[in-house]
């Protein structure tokens, strides 16, 4: 591709929409990889067999849900603390 080549405006727009979508998908995949690692370490402790047990399976999906709950909980806590500071109450509870 030569360096002076330029896409027309419509194509540039189309490409930027495309890129945004691809990036969003890549972020989603990254999160899934991250959760898979965390939850594998938590839930799969024995030697891997030919199939997951019922409990491993439900552990994996509970693990994802609770991890997300934890992250929401933390955000809420930090917001509470910040608004306590803003209200002149510096004591953390």
């Amino acid at each position, binding site marked *: *591709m030569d360096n002076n*080549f330029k*896409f*027309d405006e419509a*194509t540039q727009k*189309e*490409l930027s929409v*495309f*890129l945004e979508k*691809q990036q969003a*998908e*890549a972020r989603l*995949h*990254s*999160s*899934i*990889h991250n*959760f*898979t*690692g965390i*939850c*594998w*370490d938590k*839930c*799969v402790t024995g*030697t*891997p*067999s*030919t199939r*997951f047990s019922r409990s491993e*399976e439900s552990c*994996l*999906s509970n693990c*994802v*849900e609770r991890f*997300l709950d934890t992250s929401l909980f933390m955000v809420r806590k930090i917001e509470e603390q910040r608004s306590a500071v803003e209200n002149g109450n510096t004591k953390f509870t």
Partner: protein
Amino acid sequence: MNAKKEAVMNAVRNEIALTNAQQLMNSANERCYKACITKPGTSLSSGEQTCLSRCLDRYMEAFNIVRRTYVARLGRERMEDQANVI
């Protein structure tokens, strides 16, 4: 013009697919090594190879369970957000 656009799009798609595969391989490799090779010998024993191939299958399965759970949750939260706006 169109061919160049397609070329750019395909390059991006390939790049993302490659990154995705690398991430999966890296973390599966690390975890399956930990799970299956407890005492490294002079070569991979057949028992270790069986364990590794089962482990890889399970890792992919875990990835899919996690993906399903996460995507379902995202969908649920999006619906709740919409309900709150209305």
